[in-house]
């Protein structure tokens, strides 16, 4: 979220400038009145978001935190059970499996997807005819990738005797679909994620366009070849965008649900190999109605994502390069 941090910094700066520009010279006695009117208008305009935040985000988060320490099934009043849900979680083999499945998906899927996005963005960044059309075409899967339709197609392509199976057999590889093979479901899900490389690619492309051509020219004059220029010019200049993509894709990957649900027919199988974290949370909360347990799972997820976000921000100081006005 480099972009937002910068934005926030700039907003604060600009707010300060405007504060002096509009309020101090223009008015003498009317100033407090204008300020009070601004406060009123500010809250009035902000009220939809503020109401939504209190009623649908902050309130529910607190409630979920409370429920995490209770036994609750929607029909009987919540029973306070202390940290029992959390100790039960870490003794639950299906929970541990779902955490493992999700970790592999995030650790492998996100880097592969971003590498594909960056490679294609570099390819498209060269000035050639049809660049805009290709950019749109490659973005399309990001728009539909999470839909049920695509999950159905994916399942049909990777099922026994499906297209993947045919290709395998054509090359003399062992026969069998990926959908029913616990060792192959993860590659299948990662392929589905990588197929949607378009959104980060579009963001990379926009970032590449902002790198001044003079930098590349200067490096070339100094004798830097294409690889050296990529490592020493492109990557550092692109690092804020890379950071933004890494953060968004990581958080997104933790939340994958519908495609795994459809492809496994609502079970998370075979052998729990598609039992993603949020999928297990759904099964616990909404099919077994163990809402305290599911709330504990939700808070473990919030903590893990929070820690990862914090670590990313902290380490970003070392590798994200900001130019110009911000730092």
């Amino acid at each position: 979220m480099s972009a937002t941090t910068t934005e926030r910094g700039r907003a604060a700066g600009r707010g300060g400038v405007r504060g002096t520009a509009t309020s101090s010279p223009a008015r003498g006695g009317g100033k407090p009145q204008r300020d009070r009117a601004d406060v009123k208008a500010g809250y009035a305009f902000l009220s939809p978001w503020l109401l939504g935040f209190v009623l649908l985000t902050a309130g529910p988060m607190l409630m979920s935190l409370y429920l995490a320490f209770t036994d609750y099934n929607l029909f009987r009043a919540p029973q306070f059970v202390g940290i029992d849900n959390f100790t039960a979680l870490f003794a639950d083999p299906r929970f541990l499996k779902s955490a493992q499945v999700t970790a592999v998906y995030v650790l492998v899927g996100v880097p592969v997807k971003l590498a594909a996005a960056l490679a294609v963005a570099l390819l498209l960044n060269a000035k050639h005819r049809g660049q805009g059309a290709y950019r749109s075409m490659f973005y399309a899967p990001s728009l539909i990738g999470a839909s049920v339709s695509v999950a159905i197609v994916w399942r049909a392509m990777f099922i026994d005797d499906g297209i993947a199976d045919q290709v395998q057999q054509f090359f003399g590889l062992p026969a069998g679909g990926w959908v029913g093979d616990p060792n192959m479901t993860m590659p299948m899900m990662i392929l589905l994620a990588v197929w949607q490389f378009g959104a980060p690619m579009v963001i990379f492309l926009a970032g590449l366009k902002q790198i001044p051509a003079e930098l590349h020219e200067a490096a070339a004059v100094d004798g830097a070849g294409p690889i050296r220029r990529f490592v020493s010019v492109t990557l550092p200049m692109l690092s804020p965008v890379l950071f933004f993509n890494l953060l968004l894709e990581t958080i997104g990957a933790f939340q994958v649900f519908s495609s795994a649900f459809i492809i496994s027919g609502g079970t998370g199988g075979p052998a729990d190999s598609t039992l993603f974290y949020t999928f297990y949370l759904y099964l616990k909360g909404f099919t077994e109605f163990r809402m305290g347990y599911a709330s504990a799972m939700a808070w473990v997820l919030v903590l893990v994502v929070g820690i990862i976000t914090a670590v990313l921000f902290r380490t970003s100081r070392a590798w994200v390069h900001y130019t110009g006005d911000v730092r």
Partner: protein
Amino acid sequence: MTTATTTAPRTTVSTTTSATATRRKRVRSVVFHVLVIAVAVVILYPGVWMVMSSFKPSGDIVGNVNLWPETWTLDNYASAFAGIGGVSFWTFVLNSLILAVGSVVGIVLSATVSAYAFARISFPGRGVYFAVMIGTMLLPFHVVIIPQYILFNSMGLVNTFLPLLAPKFLATEAFFVFLMVQFLRGLPRELDEAARIDGCGHWGIFRLVLLPLMRPAVITSSIFAFIWSWNDFLGPLLYLKRPDTYPLPIALRLYVDQTSVSDYGAQMAMAVLALVPVLLFFVVFQRYLVDGVATQGLKG
């Protein structure tokens, strides 16, 4: 170019280099197009295969690598349009439309107004609220689905569209607020001052001056809001349990479960039909969508 170098080997250095340069340029262009077309084939194959399969006889879909149907049939579409479990296909379409249009209206109303507060009114606490708003973008939304469900269930709103639409009218999707804040920040502040001198208050500035100028951001947000609602699966899965309230994605899932492996044709036909509006939006508004994504990551 080749003739220039071969017939006159002793020409000046400059012509030789320009000749090799143009040749290299042409080679590069060929390599570019070969690579890009290879990527395009991989990207497009699943989609094209889906559309073509929907016109193949049901038994001829799985394992048929060929795109072009050997025999064309409309049977799959006939069974898709026949509906499921006594509920008409058009009921699902109507439900999806109500949800999607409701989302668009809710998001446009709430996000434009909230964005105006963030971008144009200075009042104490605004910075904190803005940071909190950005923070909600990083929050896994699964932490709120259980309490929200308990809340809406206690109000007797399960099997209505309200639990799915109310959050949109309360700007809970920070992506849209952020997109509009970014856009508003790009509009000159002199407009506000001019309107103020003409006697406008905040509502006047927003309604008469800035809102008309926000059209591109409103269009981008509307398209995303529509498509995300149209494709949403988890929300309807939680709140809509009666088949006559199902939107298309849930109906599609019911269809897959009921027909199991036997009727791939009808599944494909329904999958295609469910994507038609999304693809139409994409074809018409691709510039807005792609530029919207680019701006979100970059401006600022």
